[in-house]
């Protein structure tokens, strides 16, 4: 079990869980994420305009998908330099769960809260499709209730999602158990055919050293209700449930 160093058990009272979903200009999965948290998971989730975002009011923060600032310059680059990200960094330091989905992942990488970089897909095209990812670790705030090795059906939708990191840092990621999800085939094998965008080592999501900051390219909010899944699954929900469980236990 992973216990963040910045936190001691039992200091916080159980509260209604409050999660901020930050809206940058150009965010477009913000309302979807709020909807799923509120209606599917019963969390007190709020849409927060980036300039109104402060770190102290929230148990967790989610940076949703989209094209913040139009992804001009580089995906996520402009949002990463916004004052809101100072507050996100503060929350990360405090051990609170920080989740970046798709463009949110790009922003976390650009903010150096997560290692690596996200490059143009190897196909050079936008890809929208359902993929299978394998849960590589359950020591994070977002995978603690998911068995290691569990396969999740989940959609991707991006043009800059090819995870890149140099070989030495990749080994460090592996040694530190920071690779959270990998693209796999239906049998759970890491193979080239299952890699939709050319990511290094089929990486779909990584976390920080402490395990409270997660970035991933697939969209859990689009995979949290059976009606939306071609496979009748709701695997995205597991990620949010882990986050809730983590907050209940440690915050």
């Amino acid at each position, binding site marked *: 079990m992973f216990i963040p160093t910045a936190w001691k058990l039992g200091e916080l009272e159980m509260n209604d869980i409050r999660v901020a979903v930050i809206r940058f200009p150009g965010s477009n999965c913000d309302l979807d994420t709020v*909807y799923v948290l509120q*209606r599917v998971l019963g969390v007190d989730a709020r849409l927060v*305009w980036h300039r109104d975002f402060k770190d102290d009011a929230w148990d967790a923060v989610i940076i949703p998908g989209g*094209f913040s600032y*139009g992804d*001009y310059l580089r995906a996520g680059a402009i949002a990463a330099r916004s004052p809101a990200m100072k507050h996100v960094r503060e929350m990360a330091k405090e051990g609170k769960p920080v989740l970046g989905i798709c463009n949110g992942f790009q922003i976390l990488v650009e903010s150096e809260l997560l290692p690596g970089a996200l490059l143009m897909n190897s196909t050079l095209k936008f890809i929208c499709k359902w993929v299978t990812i394998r849960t590589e670790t359950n020591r994070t705030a977002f995978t603690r209730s998911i068995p290691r090795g569990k396969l999740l059906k989940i959609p991707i939708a991006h043009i800059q999602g090819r995870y890149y990191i140099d070989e030495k840092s990749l080994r460090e990621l592996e040694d530190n158990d920071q690779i959270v999800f990998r693209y796999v085939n239906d049998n759970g094998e890491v193979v080239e055919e299952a890699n939709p965008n050319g990511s290094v080592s089929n990486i779909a999501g990584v976390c920080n050293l402490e395990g409270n900051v997660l970035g991933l390219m697939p969209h859990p909010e*689009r995979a949290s209700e059976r009606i939306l899944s071609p496979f009748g699954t709701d695997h995205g929900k597991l990620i949010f449930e882990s986050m809730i469980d983590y907050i209940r236990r440690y915050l």
Partner: protein
Amino acid sequence: MEQLQLSLTKREMEVIRRELGREPNLVEWGIFEVTWSEHCSYKSSRPVLKVLPTRGERVIIGPGQDAGVVDIGDGLVVVFKIESHNHPSAIDPYNGAATGIGGIIRDVLSMGARPIALLDILRFGPPIKPHSIWLLKNVVKGIADYGNCVGIPTVAGEVEFDESFEKNCLVNVACIGIGKRDRVIPSAAYRPGDLFVLVGGSTGRDGIHGASFASRKLSERSEKDRPAVQIGDPFIKKVLIDATLEALETGYVRGLKDLGGGGLATAISEMTSLGGTGADIDLSKVHLRESGMTPYEIILSESQERMLFIINPKGLDVIKSIFEKYEIPYSIIGKVTSTGRLVARFNGEIVIDLPSKLVANAPVIEREARKPRYIDELRRINPPPEPSDLGDVILKLLASPNIASKEWIYTQYDHEVGIRTVIKPGQGDAAVLRILDKNKAIAVKADANSKHTYLDPFNGAAGSLAEACRNVAAVGAEPLAFTDNANFGSPENPEVFWQFREAFNGLAYMARGLNIPCVGGNVSFYNEDEETGKIVKPSIVVVCVGLINDLNDIRRMALNSPGNYIGIVGYTKRELGGSEYYYWIHNIVGGVPPKANAVEEKKAIDFVLWGIKKGIIVAAHDISNGGLAISSIEMAISGELGFEIFLDKVPSESMRTDELLFSESYARFLIEIPRDKIDIFRSLSQEIGVPASIIGEVTEGRRIIFKHFSKKISLDLDEASDIWHSSLGKSVERN
């Protein structure tokens, strides 16, 4: 006037002079040229469009405003509209297609609705020539880059490849929105004293005279018209959508209109003309992208990402604070007046003073119509001999770009954003979008059949509407209303105008027969190449919206369980004229295409909707392009299950095997029925009076088997699936 090269006719110029009682100044001439262009005024098409039924108990707003509005109960409305961006896309496919998306989103937004889905309907030359592939790749990229960024899913569409679209590709885009019934905003200015607020991107010199450019044929000169293609900015659009939706919540927005063809001139004249009011505008207040712009350029600029708001002055500060929060530029450019005149000033001087109604209502042009000679010639052909290896023919057809899966295209579009997309591209006959927090969904689909319409405009257009309704019904939705986009050559050509008139008569016939109203539309003329004289095949694109009142009634096309029966609904006739089989296998565009019969269509649709409600239909797919053979194989590929079908059980005229397999007769569906529901199936077909038979069953093995008396065709499902999935992508990537 000579040096201005006005595209107004002599007669139109006389009307303007007579109505005004004076010579208009240069700016005023420019306004008439744009607002009286075919593109903005519908001056040729208006008398023809009148034949369509536009009323229905669910219709809140029909044709004539930015988009149609239809009641779906629970205080909610669906808002939808289609538009073409053919001309700009033929010259600059990337920006042309992208701005098409931008414009159609604004149309839906301006009715007070949240845009929730996009559809695009495309026509290109066969994807083997470099020019056609260049157009295809860039149009798709333009749609993808814009639609994905703006956060509205592209959920459905339709693509056809045909030589007539080689130079003149068709790019039609539709947007669907959802809103509250009591918050619908008119595209009109009703109250004098209200303020005109121009919101969004700054006004530049781009796109000036785009509307008049779209009212001409494509020619060598068109390359020089590139500045008439606007440049879009999806990021600004996204922020504009968010800000507009927030502004609408305040209740201070009294009117709203998208700035499209003809820019401010069209928007202001149409809003005041519809509202019976006038306007007093100060053009020097408009926020500009470049300095030194003349009043002529400012009022006619078609710069993208702009909306014109009519604001209750009491709420001005609230509205201003919203735009400031989103950092969106705006300018308060004038007032609604009671004068009925469109007055514009520039640096204190009056530069325009015209009656709104005159600007917004160009006189109708009565066009001559004559039946084209090609029709009788092409229809009179001898049927080609039946090929010996029909299995091979089926595999070839699966590879036809008109039949093969369009996943190379739709995987480039985000079709999931918004978390409403229940039936996604490739899964069913229509896209299904759930209504959040309700046990309800809407289904949307676009259809057109250019080859049928070319050979028989009346029946082809009627069939296009019927097919859209069938597709919506196949996923379990009751068709509610439709919108159409007509794509034709020059209306000045009597043969083209005949096609146009016939097509709308056919559309009206089917609309009345199915009792489904038209709530809006768009007409695109002049889709022809001046150099080669090639005219596009006439294409009536229909977008149908349907309602599903229970999420359990949603159906996909995938076969579900081995042992289930496969049934056919409807009667199969020897109708192969204009079929994909004739075109792709026999290289024939000719013959007599299917005849539309609204009574039969209605029965077939009723049967499917009732069958779904009663639980006897677990999968449904309409029969269209490629006939029974292709429809059944698509169900097999989607469900990864084989089947055995006995063609002699198909209710039909006496026909050859190839005719049974590939006839494109209308009013037909394939359905999957659980074995224990067979009695209900029989009694329902008798009750409704529709021919319906069990023709085969779903099998465990991965074989596709058709039997016709002693003949047997047996194909490997995996081989068929691979061909169908990969052919289009291979063709595009290879060339």
